[in-house]
């Protein structure tokens, strides 16, 4: 979870995909039916001949490399090591996690808990709580207690932020042994 814009990524992909597809189609068509392409491009042939394509390609290449570098460097931002509590006091995310674990109490179905605060768009804070549970966990009970514990943790810290809880199995659940008599 980060604050990267998903819409921007999709728009970039759609734009570049259309450009590549169009370029590929024109090149293939040029080889298969050159007369068609010549006829279609004849109105712009005079302009195209007067353009210095070396300069255009160099400028476009430099701009695209710069854009790619900026795009790559600005992805995945927004994660924070601290959660903001009452009166703007920063609390380390591990302290928040320990408090959350305390509120959750002893639950054999829950293998691991992690709290990740992050700054969403427009500087709004949010928390993502990851719960790793066993295979065949009593999901209704886990969800009930996880949500209650999240609310209580917020109350104790005096924070009021949107919380997302992700209940997952994963590798730890696959290797964990059953500690319960079914």
């Amino acid at each position, binding site marked *: 979870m980060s604050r990267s814009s998903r819409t921007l990524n999709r728009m970039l992909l759609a734009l570049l*995909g259309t450009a590549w597809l169009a*370029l590929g189609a024109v090149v293939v068509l040029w080889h298969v039916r050159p007369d068609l392409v010549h006829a279609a491009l004849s109105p712009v042939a005079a302009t195209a001949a007067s353009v210095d394509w070396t300069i255009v390609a160099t400028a476009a290449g430099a701009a695209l490399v710069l854009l790619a570098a900026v795009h790559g460097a600005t992805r995945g931002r927004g994660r924070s090591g601290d959660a903001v509590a009452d009166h703007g006091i920063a609390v380390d995310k591990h302290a928040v996690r320990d408090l959350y674990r305390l509120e959750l109490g002893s639950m054999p179905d829950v293998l691991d808990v992690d709290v990740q605060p992050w700054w969403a768009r427009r500087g709004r804070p949010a928390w993502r709580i990851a719960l790793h549970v066993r295979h065949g966990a009593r999901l209704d009970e886990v969800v009930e207690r996880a949500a209650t514990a999240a609310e209580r943790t917020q109350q104790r810290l005096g924070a009021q932020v949107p919380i997302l809880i992700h209940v997952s199995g994963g590798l730890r659940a696959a290797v964990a042994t059953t500690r319960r008599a079914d």
Partner: protein
Amino acid sequence: MTPQPSPQAGAPAPDARELRRLERRELHRSRSLSASIALWLTALAVAAVAALLLLDRTGTTVPGATLPGSAEIASLAGGAGAVGIAIGAAAGLVGLAMLILALAPGRRSRRALQREGVAIVADDAVLASAISRAAALASRAPVDRTRTTLGRTSAEVALRPPSGFATDTAAADEAARALIEALRPRPTVRVVVREERDA
């Protein structure tokens, strides 16, 4: 301590819209990596053509290598040849792959559980194993011989009791339904329980 919004963060109470947004981001894949790869691919392709044109214009030669010049680049678009068609087709396929990545829904195998105040997302595997367990316990079938296949709006529970043992399919169905009602997944899941016997 009374709960109150922190003055510095200026956070309003978590409204339903914000929670839905978080939930949506968690349910769908991010295209950050694919968008970055697509951008770099395009940038390097354009930069390579520009470099070849520049080398050709300045008359620079690289010792031990014959680089294609402006004539070759122009003939790729103009002249006839299988290489040109292959390159054009490859570019088209790259474009198609990018378009599919951009337009496909990109769902992850997770689903939202509706609850007031927080956004909860559970992996499909976790939900399926929870349904299996609930159905198995209610029908007295062994948990490890119960399998749940989770579709987008349906859950198919297959009970495979050992030969000579009876199972209570109705009870399994009821328990699985009760679990779904308690969890309230979105979209909701229809439960079908059936019994499989070894041939």
